[in-house]
Every structure is written in C-alpha cells, then in structure tokens.
C-alpha cells in the first residue's frame, strides 16, 4: 500500500508561505499515489521558475532543466523509454512565453505526457514582472504604466492545437485538483492541466486562494460534456474572466500515441532489432 508521502522528497520548498504551488505539489502526491506507480518509474521534468522547482520536492527521478525546454526534454525521455510515467510542470512564462513554441508540437505529436502549468499571471522568481497571461493594463516593474498587450489564453490555445485532454484546476479545491491530475496521468496521450496557482507575493491580492474558493465554477455544474471540443472552446473563451474548473475536453477516442507508432514502425521494418554491425553492409558491394 502506497502513501501520498512516499512521493515527497526531503527538500524543503523555497516557495513563499501562502504560495499556491504548495497545494499543487500536495495534489501531485495524492494523484501519484492514486495512480500507484513506484517513484523510480516516474520522470518529472520542469524548466525554470518558482513552479519549476517542483520535481525536486517529489521522490521521483527529476529533471529541473533550463527555461522553457521542459517539453522537448520530456519527449526525449518518453520516446527513449515508453515504460516510464513522464510528468512535466512549469509556470506560465516557461510554458507560454519562452517555451511557447514547443507546446503545439508536443500536442500534435501526442506523446503520453502529463503537462501541468502553474499559471499565476506573473513572473515570481524574478520578483513580479509581466507574464504572457498577465491581463491587459496590469502594472508591474516591466509594465510601469500598465500592460499594453492582450494575454495568451492557454486553454483556447491548447484546444485549438488539438490537445486530447484539457483541464483547469485550483489548489483551493485540493480534492478536485488531485483528481484532475490523476485523470490527466491516466489519459493515454498528451494531457494538459492549467492550474490557477496564485502568487502570494506579486499576484493580484484580489485573486488569492480564498477568492478562488468563492469564484470557482465547476464545469460539471454547467452540464458541460467534455467529449465535445467546440463547447469546450466556447467555455475556454472565459479564461481571465471566469474560473472554470474541471475537464474542458477529453477525447473520447484517444488516437495512438507517438511511442506506439514508433514501436509499430520499428517492428514493421525489422521484426527483431538488427545487429549494429549490419549497418556497415550499406557501404560495400555497390
């Protein structure tokens, strides 16, 4: 019998007291426990940022890489060893700004990864600058008079690229968030969970965990059918205005993952792997 604490490491988080990320890592412990794979069979990859410290706080194999590059690294891991359970986490800057170019490709390849973004609409580690999900008009040290740019809508973005599993949660609803991460891990393909994880130090004081509790709108209560992509996209338009929680979209017929297709390609071309020295035969006798 496993316990959630089996997935906890001895490292003490560097996060500020009251940070939403404490709840996210707790939700991870619970989800990992519910899925039940031993920690050494899990690879947990992140980029750079407050939230990217998260792999170090779990007992899994972790890879705290460089800014924005968690997805390419995670794809390499999963393709190299499809038996592993591969998790990816990071912040909104890591995922939608510096690493934004990788997301559509991770989605279209459909490698079985679980990607959890801790979206706090601000750059916390560098102390409060504008992020790609900061709302128009937000004043920060790099937008002194207010941001002039519209934010990215991560939910609409991933739905438009054809992501097979899209959800949003908040650590204000620990049971709900744990269940979403668990479901994302169980989804056989690329799964995306946007977590509204407020920054206590530099985030909007009106949008902290306490506010989430009263503002959250579970999609289940709206009678939303997560098998339908277009209604999910309609609901995703509310990003930044409403706090919808739950599964926006789950492909009812998940297509084969890339690693499955890779395996098929390997077997189709060589029923058993060829001996390496065979490759040199290409250079002789022609």
């Amino acid at each position, binding site marked *: 019998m496993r316990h959630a604490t089996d997935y906890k490491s001895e*490292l003490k988080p560097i996060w500020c007291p009251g940070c939403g990320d404490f709840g996210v890592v707790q939700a991870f412990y619970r989800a990992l426990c519910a899925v039940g794979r*031993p*920690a*050494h*069979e*899990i*690879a947990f*990859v992140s980029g*750079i940022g407050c939230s990217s*410290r998260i*792999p*170090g706080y779990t*007992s*899994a*194999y*972790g*890879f*705290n*890489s*460089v800014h924005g*590059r968690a*997805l*390419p*690294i*995670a*794809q*390499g*891991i*999963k*393709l*190299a*060893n499809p*038996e*592993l359970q591969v998790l990816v986490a990071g912040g909104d800057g890591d995922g939608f700004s510096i690493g934004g*170019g*990788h997301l*559509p*490709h991770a989605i279209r390849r459909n490698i079985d990864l679980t990607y959890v973004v801790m979206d706090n609409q601000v750059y916390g580690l560098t102390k409060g600058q504008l992020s790609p999900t900061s709302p128009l008009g937000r004043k920060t040290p790099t937008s002194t008079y207010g941001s002039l740019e519209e934010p990215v809508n991560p939910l609409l973005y991933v739905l438009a690229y054809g992501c097979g599993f899209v959800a949003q949660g908040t650590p204000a609803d620990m049971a709900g968030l744990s269940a979403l991460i668990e479901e994302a891990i169980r989804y056989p393909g690329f799964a995306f969970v946007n977590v509204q994880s407020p920054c206590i130090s530099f985030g909007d004081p009106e949008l902290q965990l306490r506010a989430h509790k009263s503002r959250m709108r579970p999609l289940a209560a709206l009678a939303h059918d997560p098998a339908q992509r277009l209604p999910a996209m309609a609901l995703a338009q509310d990003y930044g205005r409403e706090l919808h929680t739950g599964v926006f979209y789950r492909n009812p017929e998940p297509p084969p993952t890339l690693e499955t297709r*890779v395996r098929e*390609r*390997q077997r189709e*071309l*060589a029923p058993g*792997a*060829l001996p*390496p*020295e065979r*490759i*040199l035969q*290409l*250079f*002789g*006798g*022609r």
Partner: protein
Amino acid sequence: MVTDLVIGMAGAGGDGVVSAGESLIGAGAAQGYHGIMTKSFGSQILGGESSCRVRLSVATVPNPGGPLDLAVAFNWDDFLRFGAELPVDGRSVVIYDSGSGVSPERLPIVGLSPRQALAAPIADLSRASAGSERSKNAVVLGFLSTWLGLDKEAMLGGLRKRLSKKGPEVFEAGRRAFEAGVQFAERNPLARDLRLEAPGGPPGTLWLADGNEMCAAAAILAGCRFFSGYPITPSTEIMQFLSRELWKYDGAVLQAEDEIAGIGAALGASFAGRKALTATSGPGMSLMAEVLGLATVAELPVVVVNVQRGGPSTGIPTKAEQSDLFQACFSAHGDVVRPVLAPTRVSDTLPVTIEAFNIAERYQTPVVLLSDQELAQRKETLEPVDPGLFKVEERRRPTPTELQDYRRFRATEDGISPISHPGLPRGNYLAAGIEHNEHGDPTASGLVHARMNEKRIHKLEPLKRRRGLFRTLGDPEAPLALLSWGSCAGICEEALQKAHTEGLCVKLLVPRLLYPVAEDVYRDFLRGAQAGLVVEQSHQGQLFRLLRMFVDLPAGITSFARSGAHPIQPAEVVAGLREAALALQRVHALTLQPQE
C-alpha cells in the same frame, strides 16, 4: 598513362553533373580505383549551378586533389562560377560544349592556356542519340570511359542504377547517349594520355561512402538509439540516413521543431539511459548553446555533430569552412570544458564518431564532433572495415552497494560518478542545470560550486593523454612543422609528401581531439621545430589562436589560413613551407655574420 587523376565538371542544375560524378566514382571504385568525389552547389533549390570533382588513383588519396587534369564545362557561365574550386592549369585538358560557340583559342579562362581545349558537341550528341539534351551527362560519361580507360560495363552499371528507376526507356536513351560519347572519344583522342594504370587492389572490394552517412552509420555502431534534430544544410543527410535506418535497430528519430528542441529531446533520451545524437550546422549550433551547458552541468552524455559551413550567420550554407572551432569550444556561459573532436576524412569519420560516443558516455559529457561540408558531402572509397575492431563503451552504472546510499554526483577520484536512469530502483535523483551537491540537491554555496566545477573539468584530463587521438607524420626531429585539422589535414598530408620530395624536412601533427587542448602533445611535437604553419580554412586561423592560448608556440610557427569556399591546395602549403625554410636560413645567416 597516369596513376592519379582529377576530373572536374560543372553545369546547370538539370545537366546531371553530380550524378555523372557519382557514376564515375562508382565505376572507378568497382574496378578497384581509390577515389574522392566532392560536390559543390550554388544556393538555389533547383536549377542552379552545380559541380563535382572526382579524383581517381591507383592508391589511396588523402584529399580531392589540386588543379584539374580534365575539366568538363557543360556551359561556361556555370563553370566559371566555381572559380578556384575548379582550377585549370597548363596541364589541363578542357572539354566544353561546342554549342557555346567559344573558340578553343579564346577560352573565357583569361590568362591561362591549358594543354588542350576541345569543343565537343555534347548537346548535339545527346539530342541525336537520345532525342533530348537530358542525356548530356551520359555522353560525357562515354567520353570519360574512353579517355580514362574505364570499364564500359562498370560505367553503364552506374547509369543503369540511376536511370532504371525512371523506366527502362530512360535507361535505354542514356545507354545510346553513352555509346555516342564513346564513339566521339574514340575518334578524338586527347593530347594527353589520361588513361589510368591498372588499380592496386582487386576489383569489387572497396567501399564507397560520404562523411554524413558514415557518421550516421558510426552512431548506430556506437550504440546510438535516439536522434532528434532539425534539418539544416549541410548536415541534413545524417538525419535522413537515420530516418531510413535507425528504426531497424530499435531506435527512434524525431524531427524537432527547432534545434533547441533537437538537442533537448536528445538530452532527455540520454537522461532516460539511451545514447543520443543530434546533428546540425553553425546556426543550429548557436541555438543549442544553452542546452549544451545544461548537459555539462547535469553531466549527461550527448553527441552533437556540427557539419560546418561558411559563417557567420547564414553565411555560405553550401560550402565548407572551419570557422566554428571557437564556437564548439567556447559557446557557453560559465566555466565549461567540453570535448571537441574532428575527423579528417570519410574513413576516419567512423572511428572518430564512435570515439565521440565513447567519450560522451565514459566522461558523462556533451561532445561536439566538428565535420564540414566538404568532408560530409564528399564520397570516398575506403577499404572494408571490420566492425569487431571497435570498442563500444557504456556509461558507468551504480553498483547495488552504491545504490544503498546513491549520490548521483558523488566525489570520486576520477571525477566520474555512477549514473542511474529513471526506471532503476533506488537511483532516483534530480538532474538540474542549477548548481547542486553530491546528491543533486540545489545549492548556492560557493564552496560546493568550486568543487563541482573542478570535478566537471578535472574528469576530462585523461583525454589529453590519449595519444591515439593525434596523428603524426614525418621525421619527429624535423625543424619544419605543419599542424592541421579536419578536412584540411588531407591537404597537408599531400603537402608533406611533396615537401619531402623537394628536400624540405617537415613533420605533421593532426589532432582529432581539439579541445581540451592537449598541451603536452603539442609541446612534444614542437620540440626542435623552428618554423612551420598551422593550416586551416578560417579567416582568423582559429586553431592557431586556440593553441596560442594553451601552448608556447615557437616564434616561427605562423598561421596559414583563409576563409572557406576557396579550398587550400597542397602546392600552396608547400610554397609556404619553402618560404619558412628560407626565412630560417636567413636567420641562420644573420647569426653567423659576427664571426666573419
């Protein structure tokens, strides 16, 4: 008759110049002739000028050769675009299409009078025999078969292989054009007898490969089972080769969205325990810099091939240069030492690529393999290789005892810590770009940082003692020294032989390990050297400057370097050595003066 021969051809895109060159070297190799074929293109996607140069010889050849013995201009405009890549001299026989209307007395190669200029009705023969001008290259192959004394069936074999894919009637047209070429050549013998003497070895045994495919094959042999990269000239053939072959060896190929993802996924695969490769050229290498640094700090093996082209920026994508050496060594923030290797020819690409993987795995480090456009895209004959001769190394895994208290970055005497991988029980650790202690836990301690920097740099020291990664030729006591690397090394090999016949006392050092700089190897080699040249294809002379950072070079050692797309010729190197020798004699004379 001759023992060694260089043929150069140039034409427009549709002329089939390169495929004629491939047929030629293929036929030569089948008969037992050694050879090298290089190709060069304009940057156009289709229909631009293209050229090839084929050197055939009864013995192995170290480089694509100097001035052309036989030049074939399908049309003059395209031929002249290649300038110094296809040099003609007083011994050359020049063949060109009589349809150009150019008179043999007034060739557009101003100031040069070749041994013979022959206007041949290349296009007319193609039209008359095959019904279109599309068989001009087959006509020229007919010429060459006769003039060089190459076996007709071997030449036709190459044509058959190439043309039969397009239908039997296409090959039939090509065969008729070939025969027309043969008949023309029989009626028009050349002023120089360019027939090749019988080859040294038996027919049908030599292999034929280009540098890119040899690099990719070597990776498979070395145990690489994951490739990810982004297409970029002139490295793309590595990815294309692996995308055909790697699956059969239980490997996978990922075409990444950019070079950052290319090296990122390769590093991820390595973290998961697989040997991984990415390949690129200068611009892609620039994008990979950050992840290369991550690989150094996380101590993860990965091999990065940079097939160099002209730079900076987009530069000259289709031509060779050796100007990414500084980038390979120094493109990093922080205190980084990463091994940089360079093969010197296609056959050398096999052991050096395997060595790159072995070093990456043994020392848990990224390794940069510096190839270049010429080396990568040239075809070369090589003696068959026994794959059993190569030792393939694996990374050091933790023992069950070490897993009892696993510390991923444990301080060891040689700086190499056992490396686990996801899936291995009790081996769990955090790989990170952030500085870490022995356990992999993040730290900001200056003390730990200094210790870890020392560990990561010190572990590479034994590489500098790997004498097998250096090749020396000539008399070790010679007062004149040559140093060269990559595709320039073969030019210096020939220069060395030529210099010896002129009575110059020269020795040559070719490092395949460029970084870290093996100070002792250079010091030993340069002992007694009074003058010499560091020969390379870059404007600044990057190896020369790199060596000056680490080695006290004798004052007489100077840089012999120029930008790419203008290959250095052996004769130029010999001239440089002659000058160096004269300068030494002048110095010697000056020191004698007071005694008079």
